[in-house]
């Protein structure tokens, strides 16, 4: 009896109603907050260039510091997770080193000869390309890096980016006022013409993501071998010729495929990437 009375009392009824309204309002306010946040984020697409440029500007000092410090830690973690492959790689490198020492002696002689010829022709190395210099700020989510120079420094889209060792990094795909986005050669949509150094073999490098690339469209009558040096070709007009891309890791010769393919281990090591050169004209 008592319970029935308390349930039907007007005070409890009002309290229950208030609680229900409060719950509905709270639920609605959550949805409203979420909707407003989503709309605000989506509206940034109308001026995405400015928004991204603004965020890069405020976050670049922190990220630049982190990027510099991060190389050592990344190496430490990669060392832990790839111990076995490192051991194998080390043995292969020792063998390769011996071979390279022999080649070095030969190349020294050729370099001297080359220097003499360059002097004779009046061509300096710096004149080969017109270069711009930039530092890497951070890695972006989709196989790209952010560099600390942009439109203000004369950079524009599709300019090739290389390292001091002449290793091809990628090309600028977006230019902001003070920053630029460099699409790495390993980006999935990326493809460009290459050739095998010292052999008359042409092909196409395609990005696979996760810093991996593969060689495609190599004619079946050409002899592709493990360890072959892959360099860029000027055929497609994207990059100048002779930039280092990688070495052939494994040749895939399937009867089903009309062309030969190969896994390529790129020279580009993102963990070691600090400073880059932008080829302003070639």
């Amino acid at each position: 009896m008592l319970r029935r009375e308390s349930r039907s009392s007007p005070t409890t009824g009002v309290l229950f109603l208030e609680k229900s309204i409060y719950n509905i309002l709270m639920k609605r306010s959550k949805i409203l907050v979420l909707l407003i946040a989503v709309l605000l984020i989506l509206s940034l697409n109308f001026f995405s260039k400015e928004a991204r440029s603004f965020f890069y500007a405020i976050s670049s000092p922190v990220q630049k510091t982190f990027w510099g410090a991060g190389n050592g830690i990344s190496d430490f973690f990669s060392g832990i997770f790839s111990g076995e492959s490192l051991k194998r790689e080390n043995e292969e490198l020792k063998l390769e080193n011996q071979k390279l020492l022999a080649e070095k002696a030969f190349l020294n002689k050729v370099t001297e000869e080359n220097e003499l010829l360059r002097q004779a022709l009046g061509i300096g190395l710096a004149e080969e390309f017109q270069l711009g210099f930039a530092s890497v700020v951070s890695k972006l989510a989709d196989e790209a890096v952010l560099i600390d120079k942009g439109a203000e420094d004369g950079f524009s889209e599709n300019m090739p980016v290389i390292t001091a060792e002449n290793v091809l990094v990628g090309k600028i795909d977006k230019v902001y006022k003070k920053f630029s986005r460099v699409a790495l050669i390993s980006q999935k949509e990326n493809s460009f013409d290459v050739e095998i150094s010292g052999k008359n073999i042409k092909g196409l490098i395609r990005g696979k993501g996760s810093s991996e690339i593969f060689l495609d469209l190599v004619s079946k009558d050409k002899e592709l071998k493990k360890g072959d040096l892959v360099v860029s070709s000027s055929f497609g007009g994207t990059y100048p010729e002779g930039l280092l891309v990688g070495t052939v890791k494994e040749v895939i010769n399937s009867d089903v495929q009309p062309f030969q393919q190969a896994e390529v281990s790129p020279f580009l090591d993102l963990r070691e990437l600090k400073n880059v050169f932008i080829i302003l004209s070639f």
Partner: protein
Amino acid sequence: MNWPKFFILIPVFYLLLAVQTTFLLYFPLILISVFLINLFEKPQDFTGVLVALIGGFFLDIFSSGIIGIHALSLAALALLIKVILRRYVRSPVY
């Protein structure tokens, strides 16, 4: 909705993003953080969803696609975790 927690988590997520894009190049730190926050938060609490949205937004800024893709995906993931926890998981903690 725990607003103090939300405002503390914004700079935390910014730092996580800085770490992800510099120290740990191939480790989805933001995604894992969003997952863990929503997993251990009370299913009734909405903070994890908003934090997922902000974390996703940070990822959007540091990628080339449409701004909002990562934000919406992470918010959807957070909501999914909440729904699963609310409907199918009984915990003495909540």
